[in-house]
């Protein structure tokens, strides 16, 4: 126990020294923070049209990306499930999902901005990739955990693969899929406020521009708007889950 605490303290001191943390810097920073907060409050909406456009664009990006991501991850998740598909199908699908997951959305956004130019399209593609990575992985895992009895029963009647899927597999996993999907919609909404920082559309670009002009009161107003939008989004996601009768506990991190 004591050894653990000593090791922890040693690590913190060493890592802090390496990253050049010091009390003076912190104190100077606190002084800056004071001035910074003074300039942030009261929040002030300097360019209402740009803010509204940014918020609406963030919403559009998250809606379209969620829609495309959900539509893509449903078949991809099925293809990646090792208990339904032969290895030569499931491995490429799993590799694709892993690739989608492994990079932070901002990095993906940089690459898409290069590929399709500045604007909302890059944001939509970025978040679609993120959605496929998240929903696809969890959905494939959910399918791998199903009971095969029902699948065998449907197969025994001589049903084609589509019917096996529709009557044997999907009824067992659909509620979990919807749970993952609503979680991802929420997460897309959060991320759509950020991709704009690298030029992929949405409120992030308005925020970043305000930062660069040192309009901190406008920054504060935008941040409050983002928090409000996300809180509304969380409430809506909870409402959707209750309408569909899905247990919110598990999929609500």
């Amino acid at each position: 126990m004591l050894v653990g605490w000593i090791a922890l303290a040693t690590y913190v001191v060493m890592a802090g020294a390496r990253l050049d943390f010091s009390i003076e810097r912190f104190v100077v920073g606190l002084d800056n923070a004071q001035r910074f907060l003074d300039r942030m409050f009261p929040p002030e909406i300097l360019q209402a049209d740009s803010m509204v456009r940014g918020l609406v664009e963030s919403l559009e990006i998250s809606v379209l990306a969620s829609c495309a991501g959900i539509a893509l991850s449903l078949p991809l998740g099925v293809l990646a499930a090792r208990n339904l598909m032969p290895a030569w199908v499931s491995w490429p699908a799993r590799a694709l999902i892993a690739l989608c997951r492994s990079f932070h959305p901002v990095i993906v956004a940089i690459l898409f901005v290069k590929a399709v130019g500045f604007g909302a399209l890059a944001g939509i593609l970025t978040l679609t990739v993120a959605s496929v990575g998240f929903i696809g992985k969890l959905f494939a895992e959910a399918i791998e955990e199903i009971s095969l009895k029902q699948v065998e029963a449907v197969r025994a009647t001589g049903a084609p693969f589509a019917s096996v899927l529709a009557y044997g597999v999907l009824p067992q996993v659909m509620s979990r899929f919807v749970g993952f999907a609503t979680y991802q919609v929420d997460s897309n909404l959060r991320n759509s406020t950020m991709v704009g920082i690298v030029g992929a559309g949405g409120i992030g670009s308005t925020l970043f521009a305000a930062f660069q002009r040192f309009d901190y009161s406008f920054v504060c107003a935008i941040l409050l708007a983002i928090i409000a939008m996300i809180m509304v989004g969380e409430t809506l996601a909870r409402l959707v889950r209750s309408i569909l009768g899905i247990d919110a506990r598990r999929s609500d991190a």
Partner: protein
Amino acid sequence: MPDARLWHRHSSRERLARFALSLAVLAAVMVSIRSVEVIPEFLLDAPEQVQDLLVRMWPINFGFYPDGVHDALVDTLHIATLGTLIAIALALPVGVLSARTLVRSRLINLAARLILVATRSVNSLIWALLFVAIFGPGALAGTLAIACRSIGFVGKLIGEALEEAEPGPIEALRAAGAPWLSVLLHGYWPQLAPTFWSVLLLRWDINIRESSVLGLVGAGGIGMALDTALNLFQWTRVSLILLSIFVIVIAAEIIVTQIRKRVL
């Protein structure tokens, strides 16, 4: 008559709610498609651009690794780890205050929850922008950004775990006249510990990912090296940095899965 006895999976109210939901989703998608500003020409030459990007990135130039990439990578690991540690230290008290079973004051609960929601809603990149403005560019801003973003996540899960704790041992301790701190340490902590460690590992894994991009806004770590390489159009260096980010993210995921399998 038989019509009235027909079995339905959902009550008519539920069916109405589901119908309204599908309608709302459809409307949202249609409105978004119609109003989003997408320039189709950009999409048409995307394959060419991607190909161009890949050609420029290949072959990966490993010669750049000792030259700024290695140090930045180690910095990123430290930012993620220190950030997670600071977050835990800050999130534990807030999580305790947000648990309704532990602190019986609606006002304090609500205030704690507000802190948790607010820290969670602001993206770590945006936190990093704020801290860069306050502390100047560098790893300090990145570490604090990681810490602040994680408070909401860690605190929420800790608060929920505390609320779900079995009341038996706690009541026994209270009945024996144990002070508040003892109840916390001997009644709640043993029940909280498994959640605590798994949340810690999960968040560390996420933070490794997040800290790798904070440098794009000047908050230290490998992202700063990426930003420099992008600005200089050194595409073979960009691909090296992307590869090294990929490797540490995968390594972190493997470490976390292994620890979970063995210990938890």
